[in-house]
């Protein structure tokens, strides 16, 4: 099993409430661009912070890109004090976002997501419109290069949806 599968399975096994965003969401929505980490927007209630902490500890998560001499204790309190975290783990890179630029926090992401089955588990995946908004707001080169394809897919999906009435599905 490769890294995306392992990361998603980990989050599902620990019952972490999250919405899949970023490159994996773009891939699920039809983008052909590669991604090397799993980004999720996570709920910040106490129960979920406990689940996130346990999940990350089980794969020896460490802060990615932080100097090794900076002490980091992975617990609910630390997660509560911060917002967005990038981790290296035994199973690859996992980014936890308390807030997605251009979209908002977990509640907004959840509201603008669909359920999709990924590797046998049900996941909420950010909608194409909000993915585009998030990529545009992030504004980094790696985000901007995926925009033309996502916009073409949105145009295609919108045209398909307008031809099939009665389907309540966020694009």
């Amino acid at each position, binding site marked *: 099993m*490769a*890294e*995306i*599968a392992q990361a*998603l399975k980990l989050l599902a096994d620990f019952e972490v409430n999250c919405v899949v965003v970023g*490159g*994996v969401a773009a*891939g*699920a*929505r*039809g*983008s*052909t661009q*590669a*991604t*090397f980490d799993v980004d999720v927007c996570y709920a910040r209630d106490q129960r979920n912070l406990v689940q996130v902490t346990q999940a990350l500890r089980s794969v020896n998560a460490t802060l990615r890109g932080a100097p090794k001499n900076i002490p980091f204790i992975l617990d609910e309190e630390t997660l509560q004090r911060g917002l967005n975290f990038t981790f290296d783990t035994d199973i690859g890179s996992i980014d936890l976002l308390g807030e997605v630029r251009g979209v908002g926090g977990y509640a907004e992401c959840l509201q603008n997501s669909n359920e*999709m*089955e*990924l*590797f046998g588990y049900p996941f909420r*995946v950010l909608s194409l419109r909000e993915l585009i908004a998030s990529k545009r707001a992030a504004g980094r080169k790696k985000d901007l290069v995926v925009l*033309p*394809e996502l*916009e*073409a*897919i*949105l*145009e*295609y999906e919108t*045209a*398909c949806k307008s*031809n099939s009435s009665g389907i309540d599905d966020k694009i």
Partner: protein
Amino acid sequence: MDKVIYTEREMSLIDPKPGTAAAAARDFGIDLSLTVSNLRLTPEQRVKRLDGFQAEIKELRRAVNSSKRNGRDRASSEATR
């Protein structure tokens, strides 16, 4: 090899009308025939494909790094000979 038959809707991505987002993507350099083939899959199949692709790239990187290391080691041992 079988010829791929595209639906009318898929053709809007393969051969987009000027001024559309698809035309902009094509002009940007995106091969939208790959996008169409991806859109024919279920979301789960798409992410599995992405996962496999990611694993292949990481394997390739490992192989390149290992080859570079071996090359350096060989060069260094030849220099000390």
